[in-house]
């Protein structure tokens, strides 16, 4: 590598993020607990600055830099902007929640930003090594964040489970990567694709590696049969951290899968298509059916996540531009919906009380009809009821697989969504038609009220006017696919 060729402009957002993060890490040492709001403000400013740089350095084509290990393409820029937004919203939502639970410390913010940095690296990786480093950065920050509440037994148990299973999945992923390296002789994603298309790679070893790669990826995404950690971790973690695991990382995992399977192992589409199909069917079935039996709201949403990841895989396995862009749209809108649903849970929780059981929502409408309405919007969107955005997301994915002739799979997906609608509507029934059990007042900070309302209303607005976002997703996918 020649230093004169070193183009750091596409990496500017990451450099700014990590520099600002280090400054916050140091400054926070001199801030007393009472003034922790300064760290909070600085973290939000950092996110705004990073997002501004992201927009400023945007180019409508793929830029490779740092010895082809970093790629800045429209897909990466779009997903990164969504992740900055999601992280900022999580920070706003969890401010009061964390303060009530003795988690409002400097590490809460720095680790959240470290996790974001890791996701940025994953999203912009064009080399197996940087993909893996980004993934580890994200996972390590998340393990620590879950365990931050050390005296809570469920949280430490969740952290331990996530850690052990996460390490196992990383091992599977690395083994798969080493097999692909053995077959193609390179770790660079574009070069792997070229080697496979050139026919010089050993097919058997490639498929062998692919199995391990898909298993590792499915674990990170939380698709059946690698889903067992999701309910326990979602339920055990403090809700603010659950949201950090359940929102932005899903976007990062989607791009991670896209980079490995679509951009790298494009030549093996037939092989991974069937693997993804099996996982998608199982995820939708087990996720939706098990969710019905849950009494814990967070656990129910965890199983709902599993079923939604099944839908995401459906879009990916379509194997064409339409499928990929519908999966991207699905991922973005799913993250938005998750933010709103867990946001309401956090708004209804207070010091010493966790609003995580279905019964806790009983009669919410008579306690506070606005939050009931927001929850109603998110539940309808998750269930896929028009005119909310969840409907268009499901519709786009199903259309993509019908277009490639997998009608049976589409019918199955629709049937599973119908089963899923049952438990989403049960939440609505609790809120509107059941007697109030808990009449304590709901106190929410003003800024959170505003952001949460906008978040839930965005589900409705995007549902009525989805064209713009769909267009952006299609355009981003088109640019990322032309690189091949």
């Amino acid at each position: 590598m020649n230093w004169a060729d070193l183009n750091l402009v596409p990496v500017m957002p990451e450099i700014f993020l990590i520099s600002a993060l280090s400054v916050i890490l140091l400054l926070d040492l001199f801030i007393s607990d009472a003034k922790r709001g300064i760290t909070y403000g600085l973290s939000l400013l950092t996110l705004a600055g990073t997002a501004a740089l992201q927009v400023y350095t945007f180019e409508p084509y793929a830029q490779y830099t740092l010895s082809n290990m970093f790629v800045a393409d429209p897909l990466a820029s779009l997903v990164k902007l969504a992740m900055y937004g999601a992280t900022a919203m999580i920070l706003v939502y969890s401010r009061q929640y964390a303060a009530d639970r003795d988690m409002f410390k400097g590490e809460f913010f720095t680790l959240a930003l470290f996790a974001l940095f890791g996701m940025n690296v994953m999203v912009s990786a064009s080399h197996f090594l940087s993909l893996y480093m980004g993934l580890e950065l994200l996972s390590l920050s998340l393990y620590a964040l879950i365990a931050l509440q050390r005296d809570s037994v469920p949280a430490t148990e969740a952290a331990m489970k996530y850690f052990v299973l996460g390490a196992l999945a990383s091992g599977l992923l690395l083994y798969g990567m080493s097999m692909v390296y053995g077959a193609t002789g390179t770790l660079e994603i574009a070069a792997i694709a070229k080697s496979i298309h050139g026919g010089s790679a050993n097919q058997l070893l490639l498929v062998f590696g692919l199995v391990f790669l898909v298993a590792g990826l499915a674990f990170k995404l939380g698709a059946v049969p690698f889903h067992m950690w999701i309910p326990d971790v979602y339920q055990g973690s403090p809700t603010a951290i659950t949201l950090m695991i359940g929102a932005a990382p899903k976007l990062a995992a989607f791009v991670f899968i896209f980079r490995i399977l679509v951009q790298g192992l494009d030549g093996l589409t037939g092989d991974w298509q069937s693997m993804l199909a099996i996982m998608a069917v199982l995820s939708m079935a087990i996720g939706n059916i098990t969710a019905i039996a849950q009494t814990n709201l967070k656990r129910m949403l965890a199983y709902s996540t599993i079923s939604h990841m099944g839908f995401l895989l459906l879009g990916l396995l379509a194997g064409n531009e339409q499928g990929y862009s519908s999966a991207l749209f699905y991922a973005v809108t799913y993250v938005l919906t998750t933010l709103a649903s867990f946001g309401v849970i956090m708004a209804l929780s207070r010091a010493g009380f966790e609003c995580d059981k279905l019964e806790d929502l009983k009669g919410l409408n008579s306690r506070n009809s606005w939050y009931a309405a927001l929850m109603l919007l998110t539940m309808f969107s998750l269930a896929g009821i028009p005119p909310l955005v969840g409907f268009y997301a499901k519709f786009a994915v199903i259309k993509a697989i019908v277009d490639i002739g997998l009608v049976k799979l589409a019918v199955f997906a629709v049937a599973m969504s119908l089963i899923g609608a049952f438990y989403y509507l049960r939440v609505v029934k609790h809120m509107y038609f059941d007697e109030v059990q808990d009449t304590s007042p709901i106190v929410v900070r003003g800024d959170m009220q505003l952001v949460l309302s906008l978040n839930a209303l965005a589900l409705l607005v995007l549902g009525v006017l989805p064209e713009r976002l769909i267009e952006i997703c299609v355009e981003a996918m088109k640019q990322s696919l032309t690189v091949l």
Partner: protein
Amino acid sequence: MSFPTVVFYVLSAILIFAGLRVITAKNPVHAALYLVLAFFTSAGHWLLLESEFLAISLVLVYVGAVMVLFLFVVMMLDINFEKLREGFWKNAPLAGTVGLIMVGEMVLILMSPEASLGSYKGAAPLAADASNIRELGRLIYTTYLWPFELAAVVLLVGMVAAIALTMRKRKDTKFVNPGDQVVVRRDDRVRLVKMAAVKRSEPVAEAESADQQA
């Protein structure tokens, strides 16, 4: 079979044995020591690949630093490992079957002629004056700059996480702030009580007055 091949198989056999003992040893100290053995034999593999620097750093860093700390921790913590292992034998048959099937399948695939592992040639021998460290340094600071920097960030996260998870202010601590200790004034510690001089009284009355003073 050439000499390096023999060494490779001997080292591999020891490595697999040590790895198995790490997870089967009853005594955690033994398990940690077997892990040390595993690291040593892997260092031997690095030497066979002519990567002297990696071999020595594996021994220095993992055996010298990490495992010694690990041994300390294992010896310090008084954990009843037998109790932790209670559920082990209940799940062992299923886990063992799944593991064996997986290993069997992997062996079948990798040994099949289609995998043609034999066609992969070993690395070409290096020149006598090839410097491992220089080559490694050159790559780390040029081609692999980005992953190298990322590794630094991962270590930073590890540090922040370790401190965040272990540092806690105990309520019952007897810690004294040296700063407070230095700036203390006589008035903070000593209270002068002015009392009128009294005549020596009977022993009983004296005890009473002492109680009142206290």
